[in-house]
């Protein structure tokens, strides 16, 4: 479904990604793990067309999408839930969700969109009471749910989730994890970016570990989980997040 081939990226003179190649199969949850500044967000923004690579290809269903503008990439069904939520703060919760379905605008989709709207309120019941509230007045966890809900309103073929668990309480993280698992069951392909390696590996099929712009490890999630456990035991770390070294 997704194939990234020899992508490098620079901000000014600073290299953020160095010759990255990876692939993702349809229906798969792929985890992209790495510490601060590893280049995870950069990679997602390259896929979404927010920034352009210095070289390399990004193939989606065989088509090179590297020079596509963001709205065309969204039209293909590649939808990113960005790090730090990026909600439309002064707009209401309802409006944020409606705008998530922007790519499906047009008369013939109205019924499906309202069905999806109900489905998302069912996934995140807290949002229902807050539909007419400005998005910026939600709590952090609620905002993250809204961000994911807005992404889902676009009916993603490939969902790019950038650190959905960042700064959230364990209970909320659990809720988001179960939503991701549910999405997989429904056939959505998910690319999950996380620093929280253990949580990510537990729900994903395969994973790549990124470090300072390079792929450091990749393999099936269970293999990597073993590696992580080994490192953790070896290095004596006790936190959920792990350092790659």
């Amino acid at each position: 479904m997704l194939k990234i081939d020899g992508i490098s990226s620079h901000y000014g003179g600073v290299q953020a990604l160095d010759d990255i190649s990876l692939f993702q199969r349809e229906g798969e949850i792929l985890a992209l793990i790495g510490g601060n500044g590893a280049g995870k967000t950069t990679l997602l923004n390259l896929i979404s067309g927010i920034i352009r690579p210095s070289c390399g290809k990004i193939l989606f269903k065989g088509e090179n999408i590297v020079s596509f503008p963001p709205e065309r990439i969204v039209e293909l069904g590649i939808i990113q839930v960005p790090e730090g939520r990026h909600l439309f703060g002064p707009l209401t919760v309802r409006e944020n969700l409606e705008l998530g379905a922007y790519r499906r605008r047009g008369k013939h989709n109205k019924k499906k969109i309202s069905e999806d709207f109900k489905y998302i309120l069912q996934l995140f019941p807290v949002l229902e009471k807050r539909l007419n509230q400005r998005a910026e007045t939600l709590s952090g966890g609620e905002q993250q749910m809204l961000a994911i809900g807005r992404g889902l309103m676009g009916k993603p073929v490939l969902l790019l989730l950038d650190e959905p668990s960042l700064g959230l309480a364990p209970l909320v993280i659990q809720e988001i994890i179960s939503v991701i698992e549910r999405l997989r069951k429904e056939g959505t392909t998910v690319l999950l970016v996380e620093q929280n390696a253990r949580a990510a590996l537990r729900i994903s099929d395969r994973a790549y570990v990124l470090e300072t712009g390079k792929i450091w490890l990749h393999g099936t999630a269970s293999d990597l989980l073993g590696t992580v456990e080994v490192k953790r035991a070896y290095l004596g770390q006790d936190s959920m997040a792990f350092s790659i070294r």
Partner: protein
Amino acid sequence: MDFSQQIAQYIVTGLTIGAIYAIVAMGFNIIHNATGIVNFAQCEFISLGGMFMYSLVVLFKVNLIISFFISTAGVALIGALIEIGPIRHARSKEIIVLIFLTIGLSEVLRGTAQEVWGTDNVGVPAFSGENPIHLLGGGTIVPQHIWIFAITVLVMLLLHYFFKKTLMGKAMRATAVNRRAAALAGISVNRMTLFSFAFSGALGAVAGIIIAPISTTSYDTGIMLGLKGFAAAILGGYGNFAGAILGGVILGLLESLGAGLVSSQYKDAIAFSVLLLVLFLKPTGIMGYGEAERV
């Protein structure tokens, strides 16, 4: 006419002129929200609206209503072309560079208008005659004032409907709030910016058209009206729509009452004193939240 009637008259005039300022302020706000810039070509949109109307109605004897729509659409098109051409292709996207670009464009438009129409002030017939209507209290009102007021209210209602109820309007607001998130929702930021210029063009044109029968029009009438509309936008809180209306009405009333009760010499000075006072005391304006509103 006794004193209270006189006051009523000033208020009517103030509200009318305030309505014009509000429309102009709205034009400034829409582009500001979409791009972060102050579009000084807004002044030329007003002049062009008036001059297009004059050409169609007076020179080519076109029907008034048709002229209204052609003039508005024509200036909207000019707004759109400004965005598609110079603004979109500017090498630097720095706000200050773009603002200077609009000043340059404004000069070009005004120069061209001067070549086409010359420098004379010309009149446009009032929409429904000049016979004053007698009000209940004993005052009078010229029908054009009613037209100005009604059209302004209609424009505001349409804008409100567009921005609050339609997906496209919500997408424009979303783009104003967060361009990256808008792009990630599949909204074409370029297209929204284009719309904002076309809208502002249309708003400027409407202001220029509806005031032309009262104050005459020329290739540069838009400068003073534009700057006062800008003052109204600042007064209300730059970028804020409700603020534009409030700012416009307050400025219009101050000006009209000031001119009537003190001296008409101070008419223009009042607007700019208010502008300076607001910038000095509360730069975010009456309804403004400050820059935090725009992420």
